[in-house]
């Protein structure tokens, strides 16, 4: 069986969130032909959910800020297992990428002197997040989408990639199906950029949409690319916990940036009880100082609610486990209290946090200007992903590039809020630029018909089994259960070994899934196809997490609760072996140049 249609591009981009769109713009501007494939409609990618802002050291609100401070903050947040070069490029280039958005029509909130306004965020020393209320992601994606509209990029919406095809070890093309009719489409390309986002759907409680099934991670892995840092998952401390149907949906860190505080059922601000030593010099000594910080007082230090996400998530987890949680198993996040401090607090909250107000009012029947919210940790982001060259974003497969969440290295063990949107535009641009360069000198690759036929046959197998096969939703649900319970915020060896066993079982069940009906917009079938990706990333997460026998950033081991120096010198890589099994191995960290080391030391004060 052959593909219904074939297309050929110089550069093919998979994913139309911030990174994919920014890559498309750069590649199109370089004068090559560009195709863009996305799983949803254009403009619906998960980037729209980003709320707080994008981090860039423009120093508009505090002139002490510079790329060096941003770099040092990012490395500290990542617990020094970041790829230093990625962190350096990111900190240096983010300001230009943000300004460029303004030239393309983005309308950021302003400072009193008319420049782009920047807000405080966890782990960032100075106010650094360019933002638009609490809907910065929507502004980013719409700006890039509208700009792309006029560049001659061909967009294939609602197409899902099921196989990455190589030619002599180089990226050659992909096989995809369209959701509308279920027809297969073959794309050949001289260079391919993966910009597929995250893996949140491997967990039960997640802020991610249905699209976050680790497609890029899994496609690259199955094609033989290296993944790194797969044990590092960010559990965002504040997701909604009630009602059940919205469990996991994000409550922006911006709430805490604007003065919101965390309290347990006893009314205590528990974050003051546990401040890590390396953050003590920068953390407020009492609530009053913390409040002044959120109101822009440059002499004040930040409140402990704005410590890094991994730490805040664990503190919340501890309160809930100790029986000091809220009625629905979270803790209280209170922004309404600021009425003690400012007049017209209600108007202020609605102006600063309009979507949060709206989200709680409509989904939970709760007015955040009057009552505290209930929040708890939610699977939000994966630091791990495809290993890339820091300058070019090329993966370990020639001609295959990756950018955004599916690429790895910049965030180390934990990502700072706000560094994701800036990551998308800094490295989306670089991926597009170098992919275009690669395409210009590249030759037209050959796509092997046999491989295409096999992939088509395999993906149609669920129809042959029909309703008698395993229910794909059930397998997905059981996998999510397992990852949530056994490879979640707090991990131990025995539980993760159990998870590995169960994952093998899910893999076997996934080979028996079946679905009825026809191929047009068949969600059951789509779930069958996505399952394979989820299982691959789940296994990579669990196996890497077993190997890291220490606690660092987003990875917390109950059986090894401390950070260990020996684990600070390498990353864990994950690769598929010839027999199809997964191997996890150590990749030594590149030494940090002395001048950057000095920057880090200076900022430790």
């Amino acid at each position, binding site marked *: 069986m052959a593909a219904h249609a074939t297309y050929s591009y110089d550069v093919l981009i998979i994913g139309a969130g911030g990174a994919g769109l920014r890559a498309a713009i750069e590649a199109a501007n370089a004068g090559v032909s560009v195709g863009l494939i996305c799983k949803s*409609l*254009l403009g619906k990618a998960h980037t729209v959910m980003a709320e707080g802002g994008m981090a860039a050291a423009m120093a508009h609100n505090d002139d002490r800020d510079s790329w060096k401070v941003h770099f040092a903050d990012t490395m500290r947040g990542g617990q020094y297992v970041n790829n230093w070069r990625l962190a350096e490029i990111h900190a240096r280039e983010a300001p230009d990428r943000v300004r460029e958005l303004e030239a393309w029509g983005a309308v950021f909130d302003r400072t009193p002197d008319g420049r782009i306004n920047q807000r405080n965020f966890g782990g960032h020393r100075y106010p650094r997040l360019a933002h*638009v209320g609490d809907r910065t992601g929507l502004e980013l994606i719409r700006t890039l989408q509208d700009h792309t509209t*006029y560049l001659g990029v061909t967009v294939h919406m609602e197409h899902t990639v099921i196989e990455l095809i190589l030619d002599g070890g180089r990226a050659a093309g992909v096989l995809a199906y369209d959701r509308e009719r279920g027809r297969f489409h073959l794309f050949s390309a001289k260079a391919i950029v993966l910009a597929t986002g995250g893996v949140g759907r491997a967990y039960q409680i997640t802020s991610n949409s249905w*699209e976050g099934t680790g497609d890029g991670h899994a496609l690259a892995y199955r094609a033989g690319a290296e993944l790194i840092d797969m044990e590092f998952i960010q559990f965002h401390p504040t997701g909604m916990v009630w009602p059940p149907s919205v469990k996991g949906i994000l409550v922006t860190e911006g709430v805490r940036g604007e003065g919101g505080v965390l309290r347990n059922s006893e009314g205590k601000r528990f974050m003051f009880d546990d401040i890590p030593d390396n953050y003590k010099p920068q953390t407020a000594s009492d609530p009053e100082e913390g409040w002044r910080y959120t109101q822009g007082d440059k002499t004040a230090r930040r409140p402990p609610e704005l410590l890094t996400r991994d730490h805040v998530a664990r503190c919340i987890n501890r309160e809930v486990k100790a029986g000091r949680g809220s009625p629905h198993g979270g803790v209280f996040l209170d922004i309404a209290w600021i009425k003690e401090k400012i007049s017209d607090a209600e108007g202020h909250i609605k102006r600063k946090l309009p979507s949060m107000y709206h989200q709680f009012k409509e989904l939970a029947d709760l007015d955040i200007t009057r009552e505290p919210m209930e929040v708890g940790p939610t699977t939000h982001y994966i630091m791990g992903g495809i290993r890339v060259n820091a300058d070019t974003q090329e993966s370990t497969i020639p001609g295959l590039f990756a950018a955004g969440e599916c690429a790895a290295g910049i965030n180390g063990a934990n990502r700072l809020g706000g560094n994701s949107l800036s990551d998308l535009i800094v490295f989306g641009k670089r991926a597009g630029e170098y992919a275009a360069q690669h395409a210009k000198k590249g030759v037209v690759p050959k796509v092997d018909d046999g491989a295409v036929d096999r992939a088509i046959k395999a993906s149609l197998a669920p129809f042959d089994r029909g309703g008698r096969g395993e229910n794909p939703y059930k397998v997905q649900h059981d996998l999510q259960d397992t990852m949530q319970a056994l490879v979640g915020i707090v991990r131990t060896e025995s539980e993760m070994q159990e998870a590995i066993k169960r994952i093998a079982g899910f893999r076997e069940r996934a080979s028996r899934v079946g679905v009825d009906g026809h191929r047009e917009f068949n*969600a059951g079938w789509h779930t069958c196809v996505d399952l394979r990706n989820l299982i691959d990333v789940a296994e990579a997460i669990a196996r890497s997490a077993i190997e890291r026998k220490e606690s660092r950033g987003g990875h917390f081991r109950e059986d090894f609760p401390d950070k260990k120096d020996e684990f600070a010198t390498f990353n864990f890589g994950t690769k598929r072996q010839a027999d199809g099994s997964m191997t996890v191995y150590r990749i030594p960290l590149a030494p940090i140049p002395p001048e950057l080391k000095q920057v880090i030391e200076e900022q430790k004060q």
Partner: protein
Amino acid sequence: MSQATFSVWRSEPGGAGAFKDYTIEISDGMVVLDAVHKIQAEQAPDLACRWNCKAGKCGSCSAEINGKPRLMCMSRLNSIDLTQPVKVEPMRTFPLIKDLVTDVSWNFRVKKGLKKFKPRAADAADGTWRMQQRDIDRVQEFRKCIECFLCQDVCHVLRDHGKHEEFIGPRFFVYSAALEMHPLDTDDRVPDLKQKDNIGYCNITKCCTKVCPEHIHITDNAIIPLKERVVDRFYDPVTRLLRMIGG
């Protein structure tokens, strides 16, 4: 646990279709999209619907619930009469693909035909601009749009009269207004609004404003000011006279 019945539009290949009833268990805080997902997982795995964020931010799950254009993810069951089956059907202004999924590609084509953002030269030597917050408040209101196309769905010029080839609809009047009122933009869209986009077809019934999940004042803040600009330019006697004299 209580139960509720949902009457969901199911289509056949070729275009025919009918409402089919599904009864499911419901729980606290559920929204219509949860109900559709439950039906999908338990009774009809091939039921087609679009969704992404589940929090009213992406604008994917637009549908008509009991005849009213709404986002399924923001329609709580406790705000709906459950003593009757809840009717869930696709947006009727766009061609049907399957079940609850419609072909909204017309919207993307319309946007392509509109003039793009064209900023003035930078204000500062470093290539940046200065804008005051009060000058962008209105534009930011328009830029809240999540492109759910519910306003297009309910607009009678499109829905009842099918003027898709002559009329761009509320979404793109909001889009045009965001550009026209953008402090940095230098292009002129007023002639297009009159001649090509036919803003005159809109007789300000405000249906679009009523269904907007982002509560954008589409009619009052976008369409009426644009209509005024068209009137000032083309119909104001003093301006016409001045134009005749000035050429």
